[in-house]
């Protein structure tokens, strides 16, 4: 979900995805580098992101990932699911003893 979100903002290469996730989560979340690429390939295989070769900022060939239509849909679903879960947990944590 985080990868999808990262890629949804703008096409990114693998390293970029890593940086972006770190940035948007305010350095709170860091994906282990070893699992990033398998995850990318899995998403690619599922058709959620599409790869494309392009030029990097320092003029090197790099593989950029873009979110596909299916990826956008999945991101929406997962975000909604996550929000539901988060609010449910938040509600649960707000509960007081009288309510039980």
């Amino acid at each position: 979900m985080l990868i999808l979100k990262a890629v949804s903002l703008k096409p990114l290469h693998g390293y970029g995805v890593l940086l972006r996730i770190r940035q948007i989560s305010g350095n709170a979340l860091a994906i282990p580098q070893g699992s990033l690429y398998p995850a990318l390939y899995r998403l690619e295989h599922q058709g959620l992101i599409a790869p494309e070769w392009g030029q990097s900022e320092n003029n090197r060939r790099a593989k950029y990932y873009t979110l596909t239509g299916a990826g956008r849909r999945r991101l929406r679903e997962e975000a909604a699911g996550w929000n539901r879960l988060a609010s449910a947990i938040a509600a649960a944590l707000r509960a007081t003893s009288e309510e039980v």
Partner: protein
Amino acid sequence: MFPRLRALVRALMARRAFEAGLTEELRFHIEQYTEDLVRSGVSPEEARRRARMELGGINTVKEECREARGLGGFDALERECRYAARQLWRNPGFTGTVVLTLALAIGANSAIFSLVNALLLNELPYTHPERIGTLYARTSGPQSSDTRRTIDGEQWERLREDVPALLTAVSAMRTSGANVRAGSVVQYVRAGRVSAQYFDVLVLHPVIGRTFSEDEDRPQGPRTAILGYALWQSAFGGNPNALGQAVLLKGEPHTIIGVLPEGATTPLNADVYTALQPGREGEGQAANFVAIMRLRDGPTWQQADAELNQALSGTARARRFASTNSGAQLTYYAVALQKAATDTLRPQVLALVLAAGFILLIACANIAGLTLVRMLRRTSEVTIRLALGASRWQIQRQMWIEHLLLACVGGAVGLGVGFLALRGLLQLLPEHFLPVATVPLDSRVLGFTLSLSLLTCILSGVLPVVATKNVDLRSSVGGRGVIGGASVRLRQLLIAGEVALTVVLLAATGLLIRTLIGLQTIPPGFNPTGVITAKASLDDIRYHDPAAFRKLLTESLTAMREIPGVQGAAVGLTLPYERALLNAVTLSAGKEAGQQVTTNQVYVTPQYFETLQIPVLAGRTFSDADSPDAQPVVIVNQTFARKFFHQENPVGRYLNKNVRIVGVVADTVLSSEARLNAGTAPLTREETIYLPAAQVVDAKLLSLVHGFFQPSWIVRTASPMGVPAQMQRALASADPQLPVSGFYYVKDLMAATLATQRIGVALLAAISSLALLLSAVGIFALVANIVAQRTREIGIRMALGSTIRKTMIQVGRTGVGASAMGLALGLILCVGVLPAMRSVLYGVGVYDAPTMLAVVLTLCAVTLLATTPILRVAHIDPAQTLREE
């Protein structure tokens, strides 16, 4: 083919691109990260190190990426295949033995399956072959039978008129060799006589012209001919103007009315066809016609059978059957042509299939045994892999893949072996032996071979794979994988099974060999050495005149007797070893006086008995004095005399009222081919009467028998060099236009008569030698393995005082024991299986003691040879083996 190949290439290309992309992407990642780290103040070296560290093992990442792509399974498979191939490559002895075993077994099977495919499975090359049938009759009663029937003229009329469900046609029983002259070209061809509608039954339409009309098929109808495509090409260069032209066939002009399409065949398989013109007279008096029929649209075979039986039950032949076999039932019915055409070969072919199946089982047992040993040797490898975390499924999959690889290679080599074996086999067969033109190696054979390979893979793989299930991690680690008693017993059982099947095959082969030897050593009743023979077709209008026939015989024989070195020359309608004309005579004396009996009849010239050196037992032989005008005479053979005159001397008695018997000669062997009563040996001695050729004065009879038989000229000479050419010249001096079929030594006739038996023996002998070889390899491998694996144990035994001899016996006992167990099992199997062979054995019982003894001795000898690896025990040095520990 091409799209598939392209797809494969594309997949490979994509794969390479994928790998390159993956590498590049990861490198890019590391470099970017390194740069960022350097920018944040880390030293370049440290940065590079950290970048690598954080990514983790590059190969692990790559592997995970590959798996994420969904192709992980394929990659693993490819890796395992490669590993398996490497393993097999490293064990050339094992791999070679297994592949060779598989190749021989699968080769034998695919060669024999090709025959089955061509004979029994492939459809006959006609339109809707399932609608074409032929006539069978079933009789009940004391002599019940169920065989294909030929019909006479009256039966044919009934079949044609009274069976509306079928379109019927008849042909002569076989083709006859004949000379055809078209323009200036003369050729010796196979001429077939067929009725009108014969080609309609087969749905064969001439490329040009038409088929025979009803009018042309009447007795004494106009003479017409239909050419086969090949003859049309060779004689007329494929010129359509051939229609309406005349060809000289059997000395008479026939008008060409049609040409058959290229590649068209008929059950008769002739080069040129003439109208049969069947009637009730002449050949129509006896069952000389073969019927074929096509089921018309609408009725079913049941209806057709009912109509057939109804139509034929009123005929004279059926009434005669009813009067001589009271209480017995005669039922006519139709049988598919395919089944009928392969009827005689079917049991032989199926027996071969069974034998080949035995070979496959034996090969599987061998391979299972070898693989078992290999698996046990690899116990430590398996243990290590298990300890390193491989799942049992992974290890088993690895073994299956090795097996599959072996099976595929073995199958491919086997296909080659099968192809060669089939070519050899077909060369062994006489021409026109099989009812099919070719034995193709088609997709069905390929499919069969493939499934056979898979079957062997499974059969031989199950056991070893099950055995590795028992590998226990703890006890095997650090162990030396000493071969266990259980596995030796298992292998002994496998070998016993092999040996049992081999014993059955050997016994069957032995019985067939005994039969063949028996047949070959039947005293022929004459002296075949030094006799040369040639046949000529007298199925020619010029020789329908008995005077012309006599003149030809006299002139040609006179010329032949003048050839230097020739001791005698004669002509006979048929020779010993051949089938003879069957005809009826009326007995005039004794208890059976007035009774008609069917007997073999042969017309011969004077000197026939002298030339063949057939002993004369009583009376005299023929001389030139037995002329057409003199007293009609015959000579009978010993069997005839014994059968119809019992103890009395037949000389001076009469047959057919006025034909005097003037002599008795010894029996000669005859071919029983085409005899109606099945189950007789291929060579028999039967009642025969000989009549002087000069006294055959019935023109009709002469033309009839010459339609069936080509008489043989025989010459006895001490020096056969150059005699054939001189014989031909002598014959040409009497008639320059007489075609000669070719020259043979009479002793070769026996070989031709026994060709079927010989081929059967040769094939079965080849198969059982293969079985014996495989069993020997199995025993050899078992013993050799035990010696190799137990070197240490043997060393200890000998160090403790056991002698070499004792140890050898100890080790050899496993092999010999397995073989003995197999022998016992095999003999029990023989009791059940061999009685099925009774119909092909002549002059030898099913449980023939000498054969069985030979089988047992052969097996003992082979077993002893196969246990020779025990000799290696002698080279084991106890001190050294113990030091190696």
